[in-house]
């Protein structure tokens, strides 16, 4: 009798072991991580991927860090606090970013997408390497107000990160360079290239523009594409688009270069995902796209270094009749990438 019980127990255990084994092998089989894949309609990336090859474990560590509030002084603010996926990685509803201790920044947190194609970061382009970008929000007193060495000390206390760093980099060492590289891996994977526009361009799923979208596309190419060039919908340059100087006299790129020719210039933002990323402009002053179009049509100011495209034939701004605006807005909707703002792999787990 006793022997039989023992055999039964042994049998049951062996079943458990078998079950466990099966589970891991299934897990391995369904890993869908494809690494960094350049969309067919995109140019070659600017980021030097050879210095930071993207791996699944590097990406997973980067994602954990991106949503880790310990990056801030009092463990309240993560990168994801001001870069919310469902808002195209912006801070929806905030004109300027809202950081630690309810402190406010001076600029609108920009969307985080297609960063591998960015030549410079921040509205003024002061940061030239994605790997160096997180240093700024982590140490900025109105954002996360923390020291990176403190962040590293906090992470080293957590077995979760010791294990994640080990998986991503082969040893348990937690360094600033590894943390930054992992964050870059996550951010580089935030590729938005699945809008209707992209599918039309790639001739996928038989997608075509409607008549209004097509008309809007034509207007876009005529009036907007010189700065918001396809397929990223920005040429990555810095320009003064004629918005009135704000109350804090933000001089934009001038602050990073001290070149008078850069005064009041800001980075040309992408037009992708505009439905999710309101408000608009470097200080979030326009709540709607109608406000933005009205600015370009009737409110352009001749401030220093105003872009030449906005002052042709002695005329300030861009001519945009009401019908053209409607069609343009219809076209801009085709740049919304629902998949990008809802993908589970980019979300906090």
């Amino acid at each position, binding site marked *: 009798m006793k022997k039989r019980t023992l055999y039964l127990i042994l049998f049951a255990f062996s079943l458990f072991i078998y079950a466990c084994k099966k589970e891991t092998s299934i897990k391995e089989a369904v890993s869908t991580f494809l690494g960094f894949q350049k969309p067919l309609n995109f140019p070659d990336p600017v980021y*030097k991927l050879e*210095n930071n090859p993207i791996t699944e474990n590097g990406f997973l560590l980067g994602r954990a860090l991106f949503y880790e509030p310990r990056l801030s002084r009092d463990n309240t603010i993560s990168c994801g606090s001001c870069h919310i996926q469902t808002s195209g990685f912006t801070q929806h509803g905030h004109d300027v970013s809202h950081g630690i201790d309810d402190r406010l920044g001076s600029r609108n947190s920009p969307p985080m997408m297609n960063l591998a194609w960015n*030549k*410079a970061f*921040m509205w*003024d*382009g*002061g*940061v*030239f*390497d994605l*790997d*160096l970008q997180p*240093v*700024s*929000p*982590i*140490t*900025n*007193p109105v954002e996360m107000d*923390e*020291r*990176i*060495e*403190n962040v*590293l000390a906090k992470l080293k206390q957590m077995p979760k990160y010791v294990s994640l760093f080990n998986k991503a980099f082969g040893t348990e060492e937690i*360094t*600033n*360079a590894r943390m*930054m*590289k992992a964050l870059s891996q996550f951010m580089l994977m935030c590729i938005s290239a699945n809008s209707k526009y992209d599918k039309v361009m790639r001739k996928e799923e038989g997608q075509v523009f409607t008549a209004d979208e097509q008309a809007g596309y034509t207007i876009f190419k005529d009036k907007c594409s010189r700065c918001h060039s396809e397929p990223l919908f920005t040429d990555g340059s810095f320009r003064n688009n004629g918005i009135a100087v704000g109350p804090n006299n933000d001089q934009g*790129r001038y*602050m*990073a*270069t*001290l*070149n008078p020719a*850069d005064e009041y210039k800001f980075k040309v933002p992408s037009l992708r995902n505009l439905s999710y990323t309101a408000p608009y402009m470097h200080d979030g002053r326009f709540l709607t796209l109608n406000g933005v179009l009205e600015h370009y049509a009737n409110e352009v100011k001749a401030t220093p270094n105003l872009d030449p495209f906005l002052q042709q034939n002695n005329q300030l701004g861009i001519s945009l009749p009401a019908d053209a605006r409607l069609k343009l807005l219809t076209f801009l909707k085709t740049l919304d990438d629902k998949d990008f703002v809802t993908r589970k792999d980019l979300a906090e787990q």
Partner: protein
Amino acid sequence: MKPIYIVILTVLTALSACSKKDDAPQPQAANKATLSLQFDNIAGDRNLQLNTGTYKNASGEQFTVQLLQYFISNIKVRTKDDQEFIVPQDESYFLVKESDGASQFCKVKVPEGDYKTLTFTLGVDSLRNTMDISKRTGVLDPTGGMDDGMYWGWNSGYIFFKMEGTSEQAPIDPTGVRKFRFHIGGFGGYSAPTFNNIKTVTVDLSAAGIARVRQGRESNVHFFVDIMKMFNGKTNISIAANPQVMFSNYSVNVANNFSSMFYHDHTEN
């Protein structure tokens, strides 16, 4: 051939390789010894004392110094017969801090020799300012905070020289204290040209003592670094007029005073 013979033959070959090396003229790498550069911060006629010392600049402003730190990098030496040795870049970055005595000795390995000229950079060269983050180790790791860090996160680049202190002539700042802050950097810009405050200093050691670098000893080149010369130079820097000098065109005036701060006092061989 029996395995034992192969082993013996291999060992013999290896040994003969070693002995051959010894017979040849001494290669430089084998002969390296320590050269120490000591940066001893002073204020005019007095030794610099953080927080407690009070000093007066040419603009008549009394001040104290709470923090002083700067990068020394890219060290080169030259012998009497013009043999130059450049310290390998990865071993040539130092952060000198007044609050940390050990940091004031920058120790490098150079070949044995009698050196009459020494060259170093106050700051960090533009190449390191733009290098991949994995190459930014040790003092170049941008991990410091806003207070004692030597890196601008918002406008990628190192702060070369940082001095902060108090002065009755400084206006009250938002934190309620009369503080002055000089954070001097600027490597010339990455994609758009900006000012370049990297200063290379070359010192002739012959008057106050050449460096005789030998194995088993440590030659120490003792510099006085006179912060008063930062205030009083080609441009007299006034705390009242410019209490906060950071990433601004005015910083060029401060940086232009840097070179005269370094005075070779003596060498201990």
